């Protein structure tokens, strides 16, 4: 699930981890009550500083996505449909922003991108 955590990106690692969990929860990939790997386990798996994982979990807990039960671990909380939709909207916006930045760098306008988008989506519908 965390394969694309990349320290080379400008986003701090803890933020990348937290974002991934948020998306997973929003998309239903992670269900309420499911347990996340322990700080130690995840740090080991991703080969990152355990403090980084701890920070990600803290952030998620503060936002209400997870809760940490002392001794038993970190669990996904029940997140309302509204909240999930909101999260998805945020993620979509993030993706579009990245796309636009990339395009700007290559000299491709927003209109061209929009057209390409519709072609792609439209093309898929026709398949």
């Amino acid at each position, binding site marked *: 699930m965390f394969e694309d955590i990349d*320290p*080379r*990106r*400008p986003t*701090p*690692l803890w933020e990348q981890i937290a974002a991934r969990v948020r998306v997973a929860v929003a998309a239903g990939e992670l269900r309420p009550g499911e347990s996340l790997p322990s*700080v*130690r386990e995840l*740090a*080991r798996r*991703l*080969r*990152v*500083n*355990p*403090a*980084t994982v701890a920070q990600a979990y803290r952030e998620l807990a503060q936002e209400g996505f997870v809760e940490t039960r002392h001794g038993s671990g970190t669990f996904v909380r029940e997140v309302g449909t509204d909240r999930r939709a909101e999260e998805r909207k945020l993620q979509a916006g993030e993706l579009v922003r990245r796309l636009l*930045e990339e395009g*700007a*760098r290559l000299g491709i306008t927003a209109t061209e991108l929009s057209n390409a988008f519709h072609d792609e989506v439209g093309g898929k519908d026709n398949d």
Partner: protein
Amino acid sequence: MTNAIEIRGLRWQPSNSFAIRELDLTVPAGSIYGFLGPNGSGKTSTIRLLMGMAKPAGGEITILGGRIPADLPGALARTGYVPERPHVYFGLTVAEAMRLHGAFYPRWDGHWAEKMRDFFRLDPDQRVGKLSKGQLGKLVILLALAQRPELLILDEPTDGLDPVVRRDVLTAILDYVSETGASVFISSHLVHELERFCDWVGILDDGRLLAEMPMEAFKNEIKRVRVVDAPADTGPDLPFQLLGRHPSDGLGAGEVWIVRGWEDGMSTFFTQGGAAVRDVVHLDLEEGFVELLRASRPGVWGGINGTGLGLHKGVGEDPHVPDPAPAGEGEG
């Protein structure tokens, strides 16, 4: 005790060609501190001075609250050390080497040492001299960890090891740190590895510390700014620190400026001079490290006063600095 390691004003001059002058370095307790620097920058020398193996000309060194060399044995008892070259006796077997090591450290955990030995798949009756490089690398980290130290000082512990062994070694270190909150001071060339798990970074070049700050801060510290119609003369009042500028090779016209301390909104500096900022490129740890080094070596590619226009020195001339990625690459 707030700092695992404190170095203040360290001075050392082993020869005419190399010196450590007024080095200040701090490793906060519980942090994983990555010590970066090209070959010959003095990383191993600094570590040797830390461990009391060499005598500095001046300055203070404090490890875990104890002064070096006054409290040396006390500090060493709580420090796990992996030197650049293996220090175990080649004539002993793995089991004998472990027993010898364990006899000297009060907090040695023999039971856990054996578990690690099995995890690393080391044969206890195998002679140390007959171990492969990877196995030796695993053995020395095992010895350092089984001491249950409060601080780990690791001098390129994964150097020359294959990726599988590297992962095993790093996993063992991370596991230990998760469990105990020990501090780690690790020097390495493998920048990408350090980037993942260090929360502090110190960059050494030619005996001087060029930068020391939290890892996340450093990753945002240095950026490449692509500028078109840039003024030839920058003037003295720059809102950021200019490390160097050179013509942008590859796509796009204009120049690439390497800046330190860039903040959003600084593009106005350019626009009011008739120039424009095409793009601000984030640099990862390795690229930031390379740019910082380049800037600190006058004469190679512009330097701090930057007249890189047209003077494009071949990067191959400096053996320490690898070829840069062409300007404009990287994620922004």
